[in-house]
């Protein structure tokens, strides 16, 4: 199959499309990733391990890393939020990177780890879900989608061994069980369902600590979003790679909510309002809300 790809100019146009159409016509199955791997494996993230100089250890450069993602469930849905910082070593590579993305109509994915690979993997995951839906005429179950993501992480194992790990957090509204659910992954593709709340990335230790103290199982959506913003604030407070809310540039965390009405990214204004409340409260008590001792 690999030879077919060399016949394709890769520049589009009718002539270029024909080689691709022939491959598409010969293709079977419902997985876009598998089709692309057959057509030209070079197009997949994680299949370029060989061209990166094999397993000689550390890379000669420090690619930008995305940092902290938090997710928590509330009755009727799930919230996911991510800070906006990407770091390359001690340099801030980006102040406004987006790390939380819609995966399909009912779920979202947030990614910590090597930003370039992560963003590419998210795009592939989005196409994968839509592709299945179009080919099969029906959507995958939430567990099915979570498993597809695990397979894609496993495909990245070669690069993870060289230090280019991608660690996603997947959350969505399960239309069958009618609840929000969270799945976490490790760099080799292990998949774990989390209950209540979870966090990944360099600031996740602090974010999870914060959520442990402020999480309530009976949050409404606004309460859950506020808790997510509090947790990110705590992560940014103690982890230099996590960005806090940038009030001067008006850059706020990306927050998404998935409920039975589908996934929705909160608007800048909605997030700004809640961030302002959190920051105002921190002016009075910099360490954030006080959890009762007993």
């Amino acid at each position: 199959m690999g030879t077919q790809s060399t016949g394709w100019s890769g520049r589009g146009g009718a002539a270029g499309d024909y080689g691709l159409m022939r491959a598409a016509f010969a293709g079977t199955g419902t997985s876009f990733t598998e089709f692309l791997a057959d057509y030209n494996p070079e197009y997949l993230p994680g299949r370029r391990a060989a061209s990166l100089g094999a397993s000689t250890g550390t890379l000669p450069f420090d690619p930008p890393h995305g940092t902290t993602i938090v997710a928590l469930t509330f009755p009727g849905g799930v919230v996911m939020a991510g800070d906006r910082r990407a770091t390359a070593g001690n340099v801030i590579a980006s102040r406004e990177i987006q790390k939380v993305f819609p995966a399909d109509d009912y779920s979202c994915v947030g990614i910590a780890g090597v930003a370039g690979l992560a963003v590419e993997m998210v795009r592939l995951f989005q196409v994968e879900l839509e592709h299945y839906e179009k080919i099969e005429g029906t959507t995958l179950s939430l567990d099915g989608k979570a498993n597809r993501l695990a397979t894609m992480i496993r495909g990245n194992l070669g690069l993870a061994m060289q230090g280019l790990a991608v660690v996603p957090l997947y959350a969505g509204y399960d239309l069958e069980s009618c609840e929000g659910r969270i799945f976490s992954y490790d760099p080799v593709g292990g998949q774990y369902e989390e209950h209540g709340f979870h966090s990944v990335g360099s600031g996740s230790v602090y974010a999870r600590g914060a959520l442990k103290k402020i999480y309530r199982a009976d949050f409404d959506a606004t309460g859950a979003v506020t808790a997510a913003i509090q947790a990110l604030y705590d992560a940014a407070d103690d982890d230099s790679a996590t960005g806090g809310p940038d009030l001067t540039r008006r850059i706020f965390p990306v927050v998404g909510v998935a409920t039975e009405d589908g996934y929705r990214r909160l608007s800048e204004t909605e997030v700004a309002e809640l961030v302002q409340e959190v920051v105002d409260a921190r002016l009075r008590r910099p360490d954030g809300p006080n959890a009762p001792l007993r």
Partner: protein
Amino acid sequence: MSTSFYVSPEQLMKDRADFVRKNIARTGSVVVLNYDGGILFVAENRSRVLHKVSEIYDRIGFAAAGKYNEFENLRQAGVRLADTRGYLYDRRDVTALGLANAYAQLLGSIFSEAGGKPYEAELVIAEVGERAEQDQIYRIPYDGSVVDHRGFVVIGGAADAVTAALESTYTEGPSLGVALRTAVAALAQSGGNGGETRELSPAQLEVAVLDRERQQPRKFRRLLGAHLTALLEDEPGAEEAAFEENGESAEEAAGSPAAESGPDELDTNSLIDEALDEGGEGESTGDN
């Protein structure tokens, strides 16, 4: 050792074309037409699962007549092509023209390939533009030619009769309800016993739109159940209701019995016609 007789290329192509035309003539028709808010697909199809009309990409829809397993192969190939292009470049770089050309080359080569049998399928690829004048409708017959259509196009068994009916009834830029009823009336005029007009109920129709005004990037939407019935019967407010976002509820409705229990006014004649039609398409075993 077998003796091979000389067959002239003209005769060979004619035999193949006759074979395909004969088989497509036994299948139900599909109308694709412009309405003021996008592109409407109306197919005669009793199955809720084996679609003749489908989504290919954000703004691109697919309609087919002929043999199910063959046009289903073609549809899946189109989805793979579109998704690959969209992933490698950008979602905006997937166009109906590119897709139509790729289909044309594929069908053309299948048609003329020695050994294999030609595909018994005729396709329509339609793209809804940002503005009405950017809408595109391409018909790709079994031999791999491409025809660009304005306003409406019909494929399938009764294509000529339905086209003739539409030529006298279709006016430019109808509303959704008017376009739907025009298309259904044209379909109903053909296929009856001795040219009589049939009654087509919602359960015999597969209807979808590429809705220009839809907020999401994916403009394709099926019209099902109550929405469809209300539109067909020209109930007041039906168009507004159909434009309300019923994306996910439509998906659910597809599987729920509620969607299929629309008012059923089948007369036995049309039932038998449909059964024949299904029989024609149903012989999807073997050839693949």
